[in-house]
Structure formats: structure tokens, C-alpha cells
């Protein structure tokens, strides 16, 4: 896999002694200059997100509020969306239209989407009024905004993939909008196969990927503190770290 990897203890390579070669051999090989990409990736990952930050055992006092619940509620809804969507995609349109269980999963999927957008919008309002981009959290804010923007066409492609009159109505209305912005040729909302591919593969990968980046960035920078706490912790006569983008 990698040129500079630690040789096995039995290889008799320099640095791998006859007894207890593992640890000393690893130190020797990494100190010899060229390190493998796995080591560099691991060190970068652990440096950016040490385990106690990635999976903390507590949160600051100010997180004891209902307004901080909506982000994780959005995540929970996304998990239900992905789970129910997986089952719907495996079983197909005939199942979700013609069977009781299919109707049930169809409804679970729809209402999880409604809940997803509901909680995401309340989360967005809360973070907007907290100015959650303070303290070097600009990327946290931007990934959240991008997740919201990608979720909209993800939902649209779902509505036009229902395989019913509702989907036909929505797709013909959306066709005009897509044509008017010049996207109708390659993003054809009346083409079920194309929309279904976008809906069950490309948009889910994009949404889940951006949401994962968003959560990891939240873990890295921590939950944004209230204005009063940020002011109190600010060092005297040293500019404004909340507004100049300094890392937290």
C-alpha cells in the first residue's frame, strides 16, 4: 500500500530488532523522512478532530435550551428519510402505491421530509439570530446553508418521482421554471428515470456528505456561545475575534 510503511518484525529490516520490534520499528520508519499517506491522513484527522472533540462527554451550560434541539432533530429526520427511502427504492412504485405497508412507508418518507424541513428552518432561524458564524465558524454556517439549498432540489425530484397525477402536475409546472433558467435540457423534470436517479443517488450523496461535513465542523469549533459569554471571554484591547474570523 505504501512505500514507507513499517516493515513486519520478521523481515529483519533495519530498525526491526529481534525482540520487541513493533514500536521501535514504527518510530524508526516515521523518523526516516517520507511518511505514508495513511499516517499523514491519520495525523491530520486526529489533529483537526481529537477523539474528545469528536465524541464529547458533555456540552457547555448554554446548550441547555430547546433552541439547540432542532439541529439534532433535523439529523434524526434525515436518518428516517434515508432509511425509509432505501426501502421504497428497493420495493418500487407498484409496492408504495398498491400495498398497505407500501403506503405506510411512503407516508413515513413524506412526513420525515416535512419534519426535516420544519426543524431545519427553525434551526436556521435560531442560528441566524445567534450569528452562529462568529468565532471562526464561517464554514459551519456555509455548509449548513449549502445543505439547505441542496435539500430543496432533493425534495423536488422526490415529488416528481411519485408516479402519480400529483407528480405529473408538479413536473409540468416545474418544467417551465427549469426551461426559463436554461436547465430544462439536461435537468428534465418530466423524465422519471433521470429524476429518480437524481433523487435516490446524487442528491442523497450530496445532502448526507454536506451534512456530515457540517456536523464535523460543529464538533471541531464547538457550539456557538451566546453573545454575553463571548463578550465576557474576549481578551481586553485585542480586536474582535467574533467578527474577524479568528479560529476559536
Amino acid at each position, binding site marked *: 500500500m505504501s512505500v514507507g510503511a513499517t516493515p513486519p518484525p520478521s523481515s529483519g529490516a533495519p530498525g526491526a530488532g529481534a525482540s520487541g520490534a513493533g514500536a521501535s520499528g514504527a518510530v524508526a520508519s516515521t523518523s526516516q523522512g517520507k511518511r505514508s499517506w495513511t499516517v499523514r491522513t491519520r495525523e491530520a484527522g486526529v489533529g483537526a478532530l481529537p477523539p474528545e472533540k469528536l465524541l464529547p462527554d458533555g456540552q457547555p*451550560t448554554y446548550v*441547555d*435550551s*430547546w*433552541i439547540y*434541539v*432542532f439541529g439534532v432533530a433535523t439529523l434524526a429526520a434525515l436518518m428516517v428519510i434515508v432509511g425509509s427511502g432505501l426501502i421504497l427504492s428497493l420495493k418500487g412504485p407498484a409496492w408504495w402505491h398498491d400495498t398497505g405497508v407500501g403506503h405506510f412507508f411512503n407516508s413515513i418518507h413524506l412526513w420525515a421530509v*416535512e419534519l426535516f424541513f*420544519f426543524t431545519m*428552518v*427553525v434551526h436556521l*432561524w*435560531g442560528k441566524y439570530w445567534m450569528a452562529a458564524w462568529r468565532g471562526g465558524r464561517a464554514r459551519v454556517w456555509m455548509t449548513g446553508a449549502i445543505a439547505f439549498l441542496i435539500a430543496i432540489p432533493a425534495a423536488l425530484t422526490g415529488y416528481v418521482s411519485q408516479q402519480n397525477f400529483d407528480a405529473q402536475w408538479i413536473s409540468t409546472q416545474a418544467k417551465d421554471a427549469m426551461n426559463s433558467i436554461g436547465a430544462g435540457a439536461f435537468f428534465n423534470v418530466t423524465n422519471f428515470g433521470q429524476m429518480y436517479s437524481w433523487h435516490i443517488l446524487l442528491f442523497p450523496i450530496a445532502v448526507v456528505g454536506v451534512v456530515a461535513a457540517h456536523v464535523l465542523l460543529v464538533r471541531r469549533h464547538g457550539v456557538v456561545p451566546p453573545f454575553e459569554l463571548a463578550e465576557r471571554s474576549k481578551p481586553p484591547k485585542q480586536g474582535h475575534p467574533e467578527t474577524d474570523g479568528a479560529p476559536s
Partner: protein
Amino acid sequence: MIDVISAIFDLNNPAHVVHWHFFEMSLSNVIVICLMLVVFVLAILLPFPGAARRQAARTLKGKSDSAARR
């Protein structure tokens, strides 16, 4: 059960629309947006369960720590 629910939420009609000057939106969307505003305000105003207890425990711990340092 389904008959009762469908009697309350009769969907076999064109959607109701709220129309005021330039503003036009389906009633269901207006209801959802109003609900989001209500939930947002409640989330700010309502106390979080156990927050006061945890705050009291932290204050007590802070006091005992500072007493131990002295």
C-alpha cells in the same frame, strides 16, 4: 378511522389559497410557516427539562472547588 380523518381533511377539492395584494400562498403552507414561528418562540421561552437542576449542581461544584483551593 380513515373516513373520520378524511371528513376533517377533505383533500378532494382545489387547495385553499391565501391571497392578499401581491402575497399568494396555499393555506397549508401558511399554517406550516405559522407553526414554525410558534415553535421557534416556544423554543426560546420554554425552560429545558433539568437545566435548572444541572445549573444548581454546577454552581455547588464551583463553590466547593473554590473552597477546596482556599
